[in-house]
């Protein structure tokens, strides 16, 4: 893994750097090791796909990067800032300013329209897109005033993507964004992520079970048993619309 870092350390600065990242869930007698010492660097503007079976540690890794969880040991640096040294308020601040999340279940606020769900974020962001711009980015300019209950699953997920990218985040963290969707709808969501990442220069990390999606990544990180099992660099990444599964 050390050489992987060297490989990429050339011109671009890392957005994230993790050192010996370990996460243990303490149970009654049997501890569960979710991460067993992960060292990885993520670079500006790259698209990363994390692959791996359930329980391999990829979600835990993503949550720690996003400031939703604390490691048991090891360090995470966001640019020069050590995340592992931040308290809860500072982590909230960090999420607010730098991170966009997309989850498998869209987690929209049912009482707010698509536009308002996006506005929720743009109201507290420093230099956001307008909700209309963000929704246009994911192709939903026609459905801005619909409530979540009036949107299809794919549309809801695209609202979630718009909501995540509207604040121009430095990093977009997506945990199984297409897990609940059929192939065609899933691709529309991936296109939205891809488009936003390209337009705004955002680093994107996508967790998936679906090896097909790996084709749209710059690098593919395979997780197994709490460790990085391998890293593949795609010489040429494919546009999302050409993928199928």
């Amino acid at each position, binding site marked *: 893994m050390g050489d992987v870092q060297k490989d990429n350390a050339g011109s671009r600065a890392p957005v994230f750097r993790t050192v010996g990242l370990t996460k243990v869930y303490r149970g009654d007698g049997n501890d569960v090791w979710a991460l067993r010492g992960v060292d990885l660097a993520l670079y500006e503007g790259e698209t990363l796909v994390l692959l791996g079976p359930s329980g391999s540690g990829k*979600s835990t890794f993503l*949550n720690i990067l*996003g400031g*939703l*969880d604390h490691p048991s040991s090891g360090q995470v640096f966001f640019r020069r800032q050590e995340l592992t040294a931040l308290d*809860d*308020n500072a982590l*909230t*601040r960090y*999420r*607010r*300013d730098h*991170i966009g*999340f997309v*989850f*498998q*279940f869209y*987690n*929209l*606020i*049912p*009482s*707010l329209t698509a536009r*308002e*769900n996006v*506005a*929720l*974020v743009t*109201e*507290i962001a420093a230099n956001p897109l307008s909700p209309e711009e963000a929704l246009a980015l994911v192709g939903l300019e026609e459905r801005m005033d619909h*409530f*979540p*209950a*009036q949107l299809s699953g794919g549309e809801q997920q695209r609202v979630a993507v718009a*909501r995540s990218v509207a*604040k121009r985040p430095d990093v977009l963290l997506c*945990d199984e964004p297409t897990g609940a969707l059929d192939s065609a709808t899933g691709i529309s969501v991936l296109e939205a992520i891809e488009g936003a990442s390209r337009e705004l220069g955002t680093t994107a990390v996508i967790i998936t079970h679906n090896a097909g999606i790996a084709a749209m990544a710059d690098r593919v990180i395979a997780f197994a048993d709490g460790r990085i099992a391998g890293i593949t660099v795609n010489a040429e990444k494919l546009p999302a619309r050409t993928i199928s599964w």
Partner: protein
Amino acid sequence: MTPLNKKLYRDLWHIRGQALAIAVVIAGGIATLVMALSALDSLQETRRAFSEQYRFAHVFAHAKRAPDWVAREIGAIPGVLRAEGRIVQDIIIDIAEMQEPARGRVVSRAAGGQTHLNDIVIRRGRDLRHGYPNEVLVNEAFAQAHGLQLGDVIHGNFNQRRRALKVVGVALSPEFVYAIGPGDIVPDGRHFGILWMSREALEAAYDLKGAFNNLTLRLTRAASLAEVIVQVDRLLAPYGGVGAYGRADQLSDAFVTSEMEQLDHLAVVIPPVFLLIAAFLFNVVIARIIQADREQIGLLKAFGYSNIAVGWQYLKLVLLITGLGILIGWAMGAWMGYAVTGLYRDFFRFPFLYFQVDPSTLAISAFVGIFSAVIGALSAVRRAVTIAPAVAMTPPMPSAYRTSLLENLGLARFLSQPARMILRYLFRWPLRATLTITGIAFSVAILVMSLFFFDAVNKMMDIHFFETERQDMTLTFVDVRTDAARSNIDDLPGVLMVETFRIARAKLRLGHRQERVGIIGIDGDMELSRLVDVDGRVVTPPPEGIVLSEKLAELLVARKGDILTVSTLEGRRLVRQVPVVRIVRLYIGLGAYMDRRALNRLMGEGDIISGAHVLTDSKIEPTLYTSLKGVPALLGLAVRRAALNVFSAMIREHLHTMIFFYLTFAALIAVGVIYNSARISLSERARELASLRVLGFTRREVGTILAGELAILTFVALPLGCIAGYGLAGLLVNLFDTKLYRLPLYIADSSYGYAVLMVIGATIGSAWLVLRRVAQLDLIAVMKTRE
């Protein structure tokens, strides 16, 4: 233990905070019920036992001077078990340690204890001995107020002769459980005492050898009170009888009855409020639990559990919580009942006070508790069991929201997204918002109602002591005097102003209704003791006709312009027709007023007075008291300041305890309702709130959404609660409308203020408890689970 029961206990543990909040609200209702019913039972049983063991009379009559054989003749009336003539006289008592004279009521007693009716309990010392005419027994309240020891000597004016009396014992009587002096509004043990003296001594003092001036009767069970009274009145009439009356008109007993009625009303009015709120809480909490359990319910039904089995599962949860509430309520109720009974022991003078919690009281309270809980939970449980398993196992559709009415009115652009979330959430479940508002409003209302008691009693006191009765003291005389007596009083040291009055006992009749009252004749230009109407206007009785209090008019069904038949019960006992000229509102007693000269004409007498109100120079009051102790014709003396002190003390001791209970309950309801509402809102919106946290909203910002919702609900509930509190106070005013007193429907602004502040406090406290949980939201778990 079956898996379902394990689930039950774990569910219960999971919602323990809410369960406890509901249990406490139920406990409030149960406790009030148990308190009121147990105190009522205790009081009833004690009164019954005291009355029976000491042969409290059923009928009372006063006459001027009736020969003993009349008593025997009355004893022979069908339905009369026993008739006993005796001598009862009001006197002035001189106690060495007290500046002002006290008033006493002397009751004759056969020396040696041959009394058959209205017997006494000797608490200390011994009974009167034959041949010692100066021995007296005094009532316990008077003895305690003055620290009288056996062997102490007090002085009394008997028929204008001063006499030394030796205290040989301290006693209690069923006749003077509530020993209230004539014209007083509360018992004042310091200024009013009951003295039992030997019949011989009183016969000699009042020249009543072989005669009596007071008669008491005990009746058979089957006797008709009304018929006996007619016979007694007929037989006593030639001897100056002033009309017999039953226990209902015997002042002490009437007060005990009135107190019991209050407890009864309490048992009817307060618990339903609590139980209604508990039912509502069950409804929302169980509905929420069932909503969260949807898939499990579907699964159970798919496994083959019947609707009844599934429904029973949730009803068991309700019954467990209710059971806890009932147990807490029983314990609290018994403790409160004991405390209240203790208050009665001090307030009323019973030789014993049985405190008992009747098993039927416990059964009734448990039944109403369970009944209201099941009613509350039933609709939610029914919804759970009737849902098809396949439907139950699919996740519910995302809730459909709409823009709220306020936003459609064009307010939208002023609202932030969190503000919209709050509004739309409230409008999405309008019924729940309404119920929560109702619950909070109820707690405000109960607070307002509790504080209303203070305000009403203070107002009553204010009107009585500062607007109506402004004299420093009221003197009454042995015999009605001509107006010339006025100048004699004027000459007493320290007297600044004198106003005379006439009071005459009379029977007022309209149609078949009649009431015995004392008609007060006042001079038109009264400055001290005034008749003041509802609006604070001074009312002067016109030269002809009678002014009635609202309550008296109501009892007689009399309206302005009606002609009453007035039979005077003193003097020449004339019967006249008198028109009702005005109706005024009074808060204490039944009032009938006339111009004094008109009353004198009605009585067929000259310029006669019964007493005088005086204004005194407080600096030389001691001298005045000394002079008054020497005025042989003085029958009574009421000192306003003393009455005011006694009244305030009574409120302090009696009312405060009761109000403390109510305030506690109201606070518990407020916390119960608000906490539950906040918890449910939190659990329903955990996903939303966690989403916001993930999006970078701070805990404070997320908390604001929950708190904002509570704030809106509370804000809407506060004015409604104030209005409902006014309504409850109005209800109480109607329930407490007795012959003895009425409460003014008056609530001070400060009471609304306190009620509102307390509920705001409860809201903040509940919000704080719930907001701590926002910090504990598991962001990852919430985000990763399906909706």
